[in-house]
């Protein structure tokens, strides 16, 4: 059962890591716009590249 003294601190580290990650996500504005990204993924930007390449 002594292993619990290692496992619990590890669990705590993971929890603290999750909180830190979440704080970072809030700070970098990932929760500011919850609608836009859903649409953005549908815009393929390959089109632009192709056209630029064909210009050359």
């Amino acid at each position, binding site marked *: 059962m002594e292993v619990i003294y290692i496992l*619990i601190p590890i669990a705590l580290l993971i929890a603290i890591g999750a909180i830190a990650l979440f704080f970072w996500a809030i700070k970098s504005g990932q929760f500011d716009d919850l609608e836009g990204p859903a*649409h953005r993924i549908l815009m393929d930007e390959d089109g632009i590249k192709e*056209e630029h390449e064909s210009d050359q």
Partner: protein
Amino acid sequence: MHNPTHHTTSNTPCFHCGLPIPQGISFSTIIDEKAQPMCCPGCKAVASAIVAAGLQGYYRHRTGNPDRVQEALPEFLQEITIYDNPEVQKQFVVHEGDVSEASLILENIVCAACVWLTEKHLQQLPGIISASVNYSTGRARVRWDKTKIKLSKIIEAVAAIGYRAHPYDPNRQQALFERERSRYLKRLAVAGALGMQVMILAVALYGGEWWTIETRFKHFFQWLSLGLTLPIITYAAQPFFISAWRDLMRAHAGMDVPVTLGISIAFIASTWAIFTGKGDVYFDSVAMFVFFLLSARFLELAARKKSSETMEALTRITPLMATRITETGEEVVPVNELVINDSVLVRAGETVPIDGKLVEGRSSLDESLVTGESMPVTKDIGDMVIGGTINRESPVTLQVIQIGQDTVLATMMRLLDRAQAEKPTIALLTDRIAGHFVTAILLLAVVVAGYWWSRGSDQWLAITIALLVVTCPCALSLATPSAMSVVTGRLSALGLLTVRGHALETLARCTHFVFDKTGTLTQGELKLLKVHPFGEYHADQCLRIAAILEWQSEHPIAQALRNATAAPVTSIAADVINTPGSGMCGRVDGKYYAIGTPAFVKGKTGAGFDSNSLTALQNQGHSVVVLASNNEALAAFVLGDVMRKHTATVIQQLKLAGISCSVLSGDQQAAVRNVANILGIDKPVWEATPEDKLKYVQRLQQDGATVAMIGDGINDAPVMGAAHLSVAMGSGTQLATATADMILLGQHLTPLLQGRGLAQKALGIIKQNIAWALLYNAIALPLAALGYIAPWMAALGMSASSLVVIGNALRLRSLKT
């Protein structure tokens, strides 16, 4: 000028804006190696700019058409150079060395492709460090190197692809909301992540109660729980402590007082238990309690924030800049630099910045934002013009009469503030009951502890804790918010946003619904209702001629006529003369026509009209314009505001449910009576000023009615503040939403009816929940006081009673509306 080819026209619409292309016009732009037709030089310029930037992907992805492009006027380009002035920039630009950052409001954003297009276009400009557009708010955040590009050039670049950008001065309230929101998110993260750790440990500890646990592990888990709960208490639960402290300072027991007491007592008792080694710990209850409460608060805040975005309309209603006419010419100055007696030029389409007297020109002004008047009002020399109204037709010069706090708009804001201060206190009642309940429990706990202690029982602390935990007003506290949050979510899906905490409860209890007319019962915009042909011309033919004549006009009647034409308009009128406030005349297919007021048309063409039939049409509150050619009356067009869909059904259902409905409008008698008759509403009130409306509602309230006010327009704002419940039409004037308790987002009133049904069911469930919580306490309390309940049983009982309450609330999710 005769145009023989007007019947042979291509039906292809403009590739950019989707509007029909008038005959004789040929513009085109090459997009994806194909020449695409354009309707005007403006659209062509925008399309070319989009292609030149390599962004033609926009045309593949867009889901809506942009407005027809009005060519960037030279005045506009000259005006925006003022934004390069460092003094002006102070208001909205943040500088960091050479890097500047500003928020821009983008107009005309209709779909996600617009966002993509503006973003990419801005990012390609030299000197732009970053540009991102928020789709939800329609705002762009731009960072640029001020040594390489000027702000005016950035705004110009946005204009080149057909959007208008305004610098955005984030009002303090908005900024506060955003900061509060991210703080709540962080608190939720802490309470959630750490709370789960505490729960894991709690399972082990409760298990230990049953199957025994080694003391060293028990201590380890308890100390760990204490350590994990500490950040939850000191950080995550802060808002409750602060608000409870504020309540205590004002000597009234608010909602947060019992919450804070529950949290602190459980925490202190648990910590005490660790130090003394006696009794149990309840950190898990503390953590989960904080987490649930935070979630409820966050959801409420999110709903409030959504509505606060519409507050931007408030800052946009009066412009920041005005054109001052001086002896040396025109100059663009910030509005707050204007002084009384200055001369100000207001061009067509611009918003009047101040209250003033018209000294030059003649035009019609759209006052719907300020007075609720649905039709534009013609203003002549000497007439007063109110700030916030929109100049519809031709440029006018105003002499400044009132500025700053003295303007009509500012006065309305003050009225509104005062009305808001007079909010009814129905919502506070439940809080007070909960407060009394907690006070009673605390007194009882003291008595019980004293009794067992005086009897020398070593169980006195365990019994007191059990009493406190088992009667912890968790179920009572959850009874209301859990049902509220479920219903709020469902209402949002229906298009009825709940902005204030008391709104649901009040909606369920309302006995009287008061409706504004324009924009609430009706759609608030002119539509063509009927065409009366007089001569041999067919109605469609008359409509076509009217639409061609009015093609260039921005007047609402012209727009209504244009929208009503089914056939594509193929000709362009020649020799058009626009007489603001009266009508237009010109040649269509070579023939001379006049359209407008009967008097004007008679004067231009000599055609007479049967005044009886015209008066009959006008009596219903509609506008009538007539069309005639030389000496020949052709048709009368009846235009009016159209009723929203299903409005009659909603009113009927409300009346069936025993609710009185009234109409309160600033509009003219005929229009209001007509609407009231159709809907079967008795005693409509017309031509009401904001003060009249306020008095009307206050009188109803004195008679004991619970009043819901449904409206839009700033003129409604004071009365909306005074009503028990205010519902704003979100699609109408956005300003009123700033003070509303609920916002109706859709185009019709049906959600109001569904919302009322749901709110009543929710109120029923809340009552059941409260009854259950009280029953549970009535049984558990004496048992705990008599020492029959061990702390672990108390904790289990408390959790179970909370679960019952939440489960009952979740039933609302599947209830039919």
